[in-house]
């Protein structure tokens, strides 16, 4: 009788979790989750540049490479990008093998040639023992590593304003139609190398060749959002415009006051 009850449970559990080994440690993970997330949620650090937990993995930067093998593979190993690799039963993973480290060094060496002024990349490269690139540095280099996060974030926000233009060594990130931009800063905030410049002054936010007037919080007067942002959020969320009239901290204060009125 017990068996009859237990069987379906253990069966479905088996379907959902897999046991893998990362750097000698045995780990249970949800089947199909990407290797990078699994490692990170178990405290194992794998560097990444183009991965963003809120977006579909892209596999552009190749920094998250690890080596994998399986019991039946007779010691044959291969390199994979962990952000794109779904975990499966019996997988054996090496995140810091000599092969992995060498590959990451090449990636960082190349990145350093592309963005020689980026502190993020310089620091990361230094951690891998690279203090100067062995390649020719890009002239007039900005800090963009073409990870595509801004493009994908903008798509997720629903503004679809950013795109990579051109190809190969001439490829760059741009907002070809500034009208589409809502000035929300999602791209700038999620850029791993702080490559997207913006600033705010006297209630005006400047980003992507465009000035946005900021709407002030109706309670404290602090500039909070652009009107374009509000219009966009109202359209996408169905919330009323009033919902965006106050800044976060004023709204929290008000909630606290009304709760205390009810409670005490």
């Amino acid at each position, binding site marked *: 009788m017990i068996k009859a009850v237990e069987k379906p449970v253990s069966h479905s559990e088996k379907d959902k979790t897999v046991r893998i080994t990362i750097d000698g440690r045995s780990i249970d993970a949800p089947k199909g989750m990407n290797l990078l997330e699994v490692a990170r949620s178990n405290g194992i650090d794998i560097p990444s540049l183009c991965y963003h937990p809120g977006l579909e993995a892209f596999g552009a930067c190749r920094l998250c490479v690890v080596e994998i093998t399986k019991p039946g593979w007779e010691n044959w190993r291969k390199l994979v990008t962990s952000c794109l690799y779904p975990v499966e039963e019996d997988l054996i993973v090496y995140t810091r093998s000599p092969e992995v480290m060498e590959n990451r060094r090449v990636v960082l060496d190349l990145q350093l040639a592309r963005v020689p002024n980026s502190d993020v990349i310089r620091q990361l490269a230094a951690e891998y023992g690279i203090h100067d690139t062995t390649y020719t540095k890009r002239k007039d280099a900005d800090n963009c590593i073409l990870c595509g996060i801004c493009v994908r974030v*903008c798509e997720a926000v629903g503004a*679809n*304003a950013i*795109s990579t233009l051109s*190809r190969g060594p001439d490829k760059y990130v741009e*907002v*070809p*139609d500034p009208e*589409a931009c809502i000035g929300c800063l999602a791209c700038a905030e999620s850029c791993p190398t702080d490559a997207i410049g913006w600033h705010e002054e006297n209630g005006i936010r400047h980003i992507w060749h465009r000035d946005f007037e900021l709407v002030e919080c109706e309670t404290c007067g602090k500039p909070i959002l652009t009107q374009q942002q509000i219009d966009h959020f109202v359209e996408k969320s169905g919330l009323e415009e009033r919902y965006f009239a106050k800044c976060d901290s004023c709204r929290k204060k008000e909630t606290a006051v009304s709760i205390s009125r009810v409670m005490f």
Partner: protein
Amino acid sequence: MSEQVAEKTCTCAEKFNGTLQAIFDRYPREESSLIMVLQDVQEELNWLPPEAINCVAENLNVPKAKVQGVATFYRAFSLEPRGKKLVKVCMGTACHVRGAGMLVDELERRLEVNAGKGMSPDGEFSLETVNCVGACAMAPAIVVGENYYANMGPDKLKRLLNKERES
């Protein structure tokens, strides 16, 4: 959203004598038609003017940024006006070692145009370099439209251009 697309009437399509409208009618109005539509638009107009790109975005309901990204990604698309005929000089290995570089120099001089940029002042020609047209035995080769010119030399270019002007 899809009803919106069906009803969309844009003024941009009229700009090109309704020719773009005919192209849009040939394909489902969705993102997967993008490249085919752009190809047809370029075939029609000989290049992709900014208004046409916006018009494509509107009619396929694809963000302008994405259309711009695709249009600039493929070398086959030209974002500048081009001459009536495109002169392609092969710069593949075989043609290169047999002096294709000289052909480019001479054509740039004769047509008063830079390779890969703009068109000759009379609007007849644009010049482009390509990498191996699969005619290495004829190196150095030049292709104009459907016509292949074999064993080219700087001295033969005047005749080539005259012939192409007439046809």
